[in-house]
C-alpha cells in the first residue's frame, strides 16, 4: 500500500519542480522542549544552551520550542520517525509510561558509567524523581519542575481585615478567609473573588492537590490502576464544587487556566492556585503587594509535582547518548538550575541549587521563591498512567462535568474510574 502511495506521489512531485527545505545543518544534538507557563522562557533555554555550547565546542545543540507538553511529545515522537531524529527532549514528566510503551527512551541507569554520574543521578529531590522512575530504573531526570502554589494579594488581605502574613493553611481557613475576600457591588454582582482554582488546561493536576490534601493518591506507581472513585477522592471534588456553588468563594463553573494569571494581576481574585512556573512573571507584573504560600491542607498538606523531565531517546548512537547525557548534566547542574529557577519560578531540582550564591542571594530578597521547594516534603506524583492522554481526559471531563453541575461528583468520578479501568486492563 505504501509503495503505491509512493509511486503516485513521486509521479506528482517529479512532474513539477520539487524542492525541499535545505535545513540540513550539521547538528549533533536535537532536543524538543515545551513551555506551559510564563512568557519568554524560550530565550532562557537558548541562553543556557549557548553557555553549554561555549564550554563544549564539539557539541552542537539544536533546541526546538514545540509548544505545550502535548505538542512537544507529538513533535519529538514524529521526529524520531523522520530523517532528523531528536536525541533527547524535555517532555511531560508523566509521559514516561507511554514513551516506554513506544520503546522510545532509554533508562539513565544504562547510560551513566562513572560513580560521579551515579551520584549526580541521586542528587535530585526524591519527590521530583517519583514521576521519573519505573521498574526500578530512572527514565526521566527533572528539569522544569513545579508544584502548585497559592498566590495571594496582600493588599486585599489587609483591606478585608486579614493578616497578610497569615494566608490560609487549612480548608476551613481557606473557605472562611475566601468568603471575607469576596467583594460585591450594590447590585450584588461580584467585583472581586476570594479565590480561583483553574479548571481548564490541567484540571487533573489541580485535583491532584486536593486529593493529596485529603490523603489520597490518584494512581499506582506502575500506572496500571487509578483510584478516582475512592470516597476521599470524591470528597475532594465535592469540596472543589462547594467553593463555587455553596460558599461563593470562587466563580461557579469553569475557570480558565490561561487567563487566570491576568485575572490575578487585574485584581479580580484575591487568591489563585497556579504553577510556580508563573512566579517570575507575576513578580514582574503585579502592581500590588503579593505573597506566595503552600497550598492549604485538609488531612495533610499536599500538591502534586508537575512539569517536564529530560528523556534520552533510544534511537541515537552511543556517542550521541553520551553527549546528550553531558547536556542534561549541565542543564541540571546546581548553577544552571539556580539560574533557571531564578529566571522562571520553576524550582531548583536538587538541594545543590539552593546552596549556590545565585539562589541564596535571590531567596534573601525574594523569599516566595522557596515555597515550591518547601512544599516538596508534602508532594506527590502527578497523575501518570499508561494511555495517559485518554485516562487524563476521563478525569478532566469528570471534574468539569462536576464543576459545571452536569453530574454529581460521585457519579462523574465513578464513571471516569470505570472508563479508565477498562482502558488500563490491557496494560496489566
Amino acid at each position, binding site marked *: 500500500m505504501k509503495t503505491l502511495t509512493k509511486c503516485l506521489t513521486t509521479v506528482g512531485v517529479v512532474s513539477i519542480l520539487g524542492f525541499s527545505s535545505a535545513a540540513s545543518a550539521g547538528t549533533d544534538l536535537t532536543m524538543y522542549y515545551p513551555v506551559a507557563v510564563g512568557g519568554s522562557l524560550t530565550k532562557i533555554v537558548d541562553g543556557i544552551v549557548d553557555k553549554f555550547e561555549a564550554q563544549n565546542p564539539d557539541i552542537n545543540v539544536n533546541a526546538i520550542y514545540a509548544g505545550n507538553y502535548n505538542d512537544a511529545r507529538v513533535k519529538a515522537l514524529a521526529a524520531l520517525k523522520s530523517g532528523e531524529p531528536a536525541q533527547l527532549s524535555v517532555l511531560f514528566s508523566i509521559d514516561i509510561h507511554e514513551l516506554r510503551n513506544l520503546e522510545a527512551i532509554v533508562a539513565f541507569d544504562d547510560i551513566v558509567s562513572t560513580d560521579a554520574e551515579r551520584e549526580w543521578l541521586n542528587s535530585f529531590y526524591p519527590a521530583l524523581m517519583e514521576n521519573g522512575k519505573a521498574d526500578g530504573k530512572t527514565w526521566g531526570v527533572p528539569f522544569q519542575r513545579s508544584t502548585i502554589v497559592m498566590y495571594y494579594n496582600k493588599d486585599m488581605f489587609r483591606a478585608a481585615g486579614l493578616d497578610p502574613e497569615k494566608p490560609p493553611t487549612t480548608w476551613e481557613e481557606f473557605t472562611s478567609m475566601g468568603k471575607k475576600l469576596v467583594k460585591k457591588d450594590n447590585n450584588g454582582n461580584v467585583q472581586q473573588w476570594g479565590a480561583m482554582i483553574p479548571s481548564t488546561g490541567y484540571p487533573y493536576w489541580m485535583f491532584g492537590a486536593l486529593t493529596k490534601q485529603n490523603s489520597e493518591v490518584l494512581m499506582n506507581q506502575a500506572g496500571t490502576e487509578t483510584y478516582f472513585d475512592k470516597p476521599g477522592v470524591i470528597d475532594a471534588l465535592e469540596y472543589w464544587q462547594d467553593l463555587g456553588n455553596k460558599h461563593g468563594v470562587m466563580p461557579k463553573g469553569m475557570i480558565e487556566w490561561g487567563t487566570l494569571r491576568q485575572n490575578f494581576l487585574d485584581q479580580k481574585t484575591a487568591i489563585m492556585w497556579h504553577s510556580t512556573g508563573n512566579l517570575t512573571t507575576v513578580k514582574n507584573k503585579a502592581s500590588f503587594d503579593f505573597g506566595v504560600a503552600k497550598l492549604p491542607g485538609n488531612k495533610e498538606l499536599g500538591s502534586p509535582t508537575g512539569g517536564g523531565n529530560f528523556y534520552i531517546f533510544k534511537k541515537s548512537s552511543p556517542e550521541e547518548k553520551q553527549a546528550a547525557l553531558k547536556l542534561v548534566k549541565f542543564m541540571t547542574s546546581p548553577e544552571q538550575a539556580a539560574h533557571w529557577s531564578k529566571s522562571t519560578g520553576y524550582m531548583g531540582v536538587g538541594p545543590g541549587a539552593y546552596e549556590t550564591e545565585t539562589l541564596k542571594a535571590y531567596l534573601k530578597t525574594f523569599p516566595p521563591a522557596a515555597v515550591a521547594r518547601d512544599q516538596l516534603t508534602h508532594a506527590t506524583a502527578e497523575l501518570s498512567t499508561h494511555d495517559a492522554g485518554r485516562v487524563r481526559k476521563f478525569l478532566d471531563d469528570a471534574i468539569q462535568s462536576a464543576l*459545571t453541575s452536569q453530574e454529581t461528583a460521585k457519579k462523574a468520578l465513578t464513571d471516569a474510574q470505570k472508563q479508565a479501568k477498562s482502558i488500563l486492563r490491557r496494560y496489566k
Partner: protein
Amino acid sequence: MINRLNLKAWLLLLPALSLLIAFTHWPTLKSFWRSFTWARSDVAPSQFVGLDNYRIMLDDPVFWKVIENNFWYALGTVPTSIGLAIMMALWVNSKIRCTSLLRLAFFTPTILPMITVANIWLFFYSPNIGLFNQLLGLVGIAGPNWLGDPDLALSSLMVMTIWKEAGFFMIFYLAALQTLSPELFDAAKLEGANAWRIFRKITFPLLMPTTLFVLINALLNAFKLVDHLFILTKGGPNNASNLLLYYIYETAFSFLDSYYAATLTVVMLLTLALIALVQILVIDRRIHYR
C-alpha cells in the same frame, strides 16, 4: 489517432490526478481499511479486528457528544451566516453612504487567520475581565462565563464562526446581485411593492443558485473549521464544545491512536458523502456545470 488523443489527455491529467488520488482517494480507502485494524502501540504490528473499533465508537459517549455538537454547530452557523451574508450584500449593494468602508469591514475577517484572532476572541469572552462582560457590567449585568458554561460554550464558538464566514459568503451574493437587472426592481416599485415583498418575491428567488452554492460551502466548513477550538475551549468543558474533526485530531495526535481516529474519520467521510449526495440530487438539477 484515438489512442494518441487519449494518451495526450491522460498525460495532461496525470500529475494533477495522481496527486489528488494520493492525498484524497487513496487515504480515504486507507482510512476504511485502518478502521478495521488495531495495534497496542505505534511500534506493534497491527491486526485485523473486524468491527471492534466501531463497537467501541458506539459505546463512546464522547463520540455521540461530538456528533450531536456538530449537528447543532451546523444548524447554528449555516443559516445565520447565510442570512447575514444576504443582508450584508444588500446593504453594500444599496445606496447608503460609505458602502466601500462597510464592505471592507464585513470582509476583513476573511483574511484574518482564525487561529490568531481566536486569542482576541478569548479576551472578548473571558469572564470578569473580558470585553463582553465589561460592557454588560456597564449596564449592571453580571455577564456569564461564555466559554466555561457548557450551555454557552458551543454557541460562543458559533458566534465566532459566523463572524468569520458571513463576510466571505457576502461576496458571492454581491456578485449575484450585480448580475440582476435593475429594471426588475423598478417595475416592482412602480407596482407599489414594499422592500420586504420585493426581497421575498424577486431578490431571494433569483439568488437561489448562490444560496445553494453557499449552503454547501457553509456545511462543509461546519465540519472542517475547528481552528478556534485549539485556543478557545479545546472542546471543553466536558466536551460541551468538542467537534468531530477536533476529536479526530485529539485521538490521533494526543492519544496516539490512529486506528480509532481512522474509525472516526470514516464517519466524517460518510457525512461528507451524504452532503455530496444531497448536492448531486438536489442542487445539480438547478445549477448546471456548463
